């Protein structure tokens, strides 16, 4: 949701389908494709793919950018676990504001309330 909010502020329409992996593009974000490939590689288990993704991203955005990218991937890999292990719902205002793109992206199936 903050990605869309960032786009609204800067008058940019980001392609959120890149978030689900439905399209392989850059989402309209600078170096978006490299960022997505890096995130996928970090959470994957292929060391060669990760080495390649890390080197490509570092070449594009520099070591300081790589550190911040790695930090964000690590942090959200943890935050997701806090959210899922405690069963927190989306806040009402976020649920309402994100209803359209959640439906479009098909991510409502991840709702903790829908799990058996």
């Amino acid at each position, binding site marked *: 949701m903050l*990605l869309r909010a960032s786009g609204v502020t800067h008058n940019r329409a980001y392609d959120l389908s890149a978030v689900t992996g439905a399209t392989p593009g850059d989402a309209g974000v600078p170096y978006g494709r490299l960022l997505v490939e890096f995130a996928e590689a970090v959470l994957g288990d292929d060391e060669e793919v990760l080495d390649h993704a890390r080197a490509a991203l570092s070449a594009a955005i520099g070591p300081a950018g790589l550190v911040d990218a790695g930090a964000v991937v*690590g942090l959200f890999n*943890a935050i997701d676990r806090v959210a899922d*292990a405690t069963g927190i719902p989306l806040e009402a205002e976020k649920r309402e504001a994100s209803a359209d793109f959640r439906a479009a992206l098909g991510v409502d199936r991840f709702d903790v309330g829908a799990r058996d």
Partner: protein
Amino acid sequence: MSEFYASAPIPIRDDLAAAHDRAWVRIGRPGTWWDGAQRVAIAAETRNAPSCALCRRRKEALSPAAIEGTHDSLSALPEIVVEIVHRVRTDPGRLSERWFRGIIPAGLSEEQYVETVSIVAHVVAIDTMARGLGIDEPALPQPQPGTPSRNRPYGAQLGGAWVPWLEPADLSEAEADLYPSGRPAANIMKAMSLVPDEVRGFFDVVSYQYQPPLAMRDFSREYRAISHAQIELLAARVSVLNQCLY
């Protein structure tokens, strides 16, 4: 200047290194419901979980509940704690309220559960970053002596989550610093508020590994070497990969 990542082959922001240093110190100390040795054992088990054969079979199964067996553990924790650590570490996208409701009758308190989840989250945050950057995982801290404080916040009650939490209106003076002022407390901040010190600790890491609360929605400037849009693209892709709606 923090020495936490002094030997890393790429420079790590000093504020980020210092935040991880503080997190490690906290993990080694007695917490609210676990002592230092138990907290470090939970951290060690978090690192051990990906090599568990039962977790791998469950991950591949249509339903994790259909696969029975015993976890490959380090044998330092009760089996029910190992189950929590391994499930949260290896298959968070399929945790369910039914699974959670089975944990408590098995001999664990909700408070111990929340503190366990927090320790797993700390280790995942730091170790995943290390993997991403191609640097060594930091050695786990040495356990410090002492006893847990066993401080349950008086105002905690069931709300929208599986675990009781603290609404801002129910904070006592001791918890007055828990949520940022000037805006509603997000559910992710309330999630672990049954153990207030874990909220303080985890969000200390969040502020430096992601962004401080007020920077998240301040799109007028950038606070990191990557932009808000780049940060949020990464965050969203990771959450989809983890099958996390929140």
